[in-house]
């Protein structure tokens, strides 16, 4: 009988959303006040916004738990506690990202101008100059790496899901897993060692960078494509076989179109993964201040390498170098963002229609 009574009372008394919002506002104001006082008293160096947000989140979770425990009972209080912790974890995970984008945009906008996109760093010391050579390098090297990796990756995944049986398939899967974990510098060293055999030591060109990057990209493409192909219901393959369609046509015309949206998303993630690589390119693509449109000849700079050199070796006017570095980083982020948007649109257009 007593549990019956308790259930009735707990369901009647709930915390109003208004009260919870007030609690949240109060926790924020309290921690804001504390940290403003601390910074004015000189205990912390400057006002700390991150700590303020973290402490107000902590305060809110604790307060809402206690209040809920008193008003609503144990079950609801636990629910609010867990919901609060999960939400806080999400906010904490998001904070560095927001901070990073804010810093990059704020510092990168200084040099996001026509000169940056129309000139290289040839004969530049100090102000001026730009990252056109690096932008071209990034686009060419990434494109070449994609051209190498996407067909190999997708075909490997098709082999693993549709054809591979037994020991060979297991071995391929194992090697793909190992490849996923290769440090990027090792990929660079591999490409360097490979091309040094043919062209002698000290060889540096863009296509070498593309080969190193494709080593990093292939396992990502294989893994994501494999997962997508596995999601295609077996019934569709059987339906196709039952119509007298050979296996390869079933793969090309039924399985791939059904999974294409997911495959594109996976490929884009793989491109985003390699477009920001620095270390292997420093080794095999080298760095240069000149324009170079030729993948197969001479050193080629990409945006991450450009950012690195601008930051690591500033010249006489250090601020100009830092500004260029930030702008290079901003451009890189914008490229990745544009790729993601294109991928989303493509995925939406190509995805299977209907309610499923």
């Amino acid at each position: 009988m007593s549990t019956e009574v308790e259930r009735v009372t707990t369901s009647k008394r709930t915390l109003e959303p208004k009260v919870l919002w007030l609690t949240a506002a109060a926790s924020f104001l309290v921690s804001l006040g504390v940290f403003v006082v601390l910074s004015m008293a000189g205990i912390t160096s400057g006002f700390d916004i991150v700590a303020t947000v973290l402490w107000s989140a902590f305060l809110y979770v604790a307060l809402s738990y206690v209040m809920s425990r008193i008003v609503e009972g144990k079950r609801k209080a636990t629910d609010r506690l867990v919901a609060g912790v999960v939400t806080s974890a999400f906010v904490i995970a998001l904070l560095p990202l927001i901070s990073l984008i804010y810093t990059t945009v704020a510092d990168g906008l200084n040099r996001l101008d026509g000169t940056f996109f129309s000139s290289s760093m040839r004969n530049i010391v100090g102000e001026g100059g730009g990252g056109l050579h690096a932008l071209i390098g990034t686009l060419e090297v990434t494109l070449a790496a994609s051209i190498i990796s996407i067909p190999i990756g997708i075909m490997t995944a098709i082999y693993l899901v549709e054809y591979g049986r037994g020991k060979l398939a297991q071995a391929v899967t194992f090697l793909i897993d190992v490849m996923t974990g290769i440090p990027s510098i090792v990929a660079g060293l591999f490409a360097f060692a490979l091309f040094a055999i043919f062209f002698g030591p000290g060889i540096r060109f863009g296509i070498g960078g593309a080969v190193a990057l494709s080593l990093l990209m292939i396992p990502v493409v294989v893994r994501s494509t494999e997962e997508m192909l596995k999601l295609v219901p077996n019934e569709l393959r059987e339906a196709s076989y039952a119509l007298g369609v050979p296996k390869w046509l079933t793969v090309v015309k039924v399985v791939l179109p059904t999974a294409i949206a997911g495959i594109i998303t996976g490929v884009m993630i793989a491109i985003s993964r390699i477009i920001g690589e620095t270390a292997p390119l420093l080794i095999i693509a080298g760095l240069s201040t000149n324009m170079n449109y030729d993948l197969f000849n001479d050193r080629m700079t990409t945006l991450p390498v450009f950012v690195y050199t601008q930051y690591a070796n500033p010249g006489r006017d250090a601020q100009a170098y830092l500004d260029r570095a930030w702008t290079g980083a901003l451009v890189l982020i914008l490229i990745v963002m544009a790729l993601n948007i294109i991928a989303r649109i493509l995925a939406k257009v190509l995805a299977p229609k209907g309610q499923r």
Partner: protein
Amino acid sequence: MSKRIEVKDLNVYYGKFKAVEDVSLTIEPRTVTAFIGPSGCGKSTFLRTLNRMHEVIPGARVEGEVMIDGKNLYDADVDPVMVRRQVGMVFQRPNPFPTMSIADNVLAGVKLNNAKISKSDAEHLVEKSLKGANLWKEVKDRLNLPGSGLSGGQQQRLCIARAIAVSPEVILMDEPCSALDPISTLAIEDLIEELKAKYTIVIVTHNMQQASRVSDKTAFFNIAGTGEPGKLIEFDDTTTIFENPHVQATEDYISGRFG
């Protein structure tokens, strides 16, 4: 159009496991034959050997003969792809291709095989097949919409239209109504009655009323226990099986005493 199927001493294996043992039966042209029996007794497995669909599962193999008009499906020179163009199949769950429109689903057998078809021929084939599957009136105004937007019963009839569009000789149906409501089931059963005029139809069903309603002949499969192979217990006219079965196990099963 339709053909006689003769099965002689057929054993089906999954790897080392013998799933179906020693089945021999003859299916006459332009009849409906129903396979009934408890779950796991091998009736679906046996059905899939009739168009070599069981080979899709790794490790599956067959001993014995399946003759369609005197030609053994399992001869070395027979291409399973060609077998499946003659013997169509409809599955338990409706499975229209989600990337294709209703019309393209009907044309799937043609288009997926890269065959050329003129626009007027294609329109004619779509209309003919959808009319054959009793779906034309319901979908004629939305042929270009995705097939997955239809109701379950309509999807299943779309799958039947897709199967008859490649003009097979035999249509196999693996529990075609088990995912459908009674009204859609009735629509499919009426359709089977009509299709019988042109095609040889083999249907697996768990619904004994359905078997007695639609079929001319019924085969009862049973299994001695888990891990044992399924066997054909009795094969006779549907009326005989349901009214006067010769084997005790058949009587027990259809009267609901086990299974």
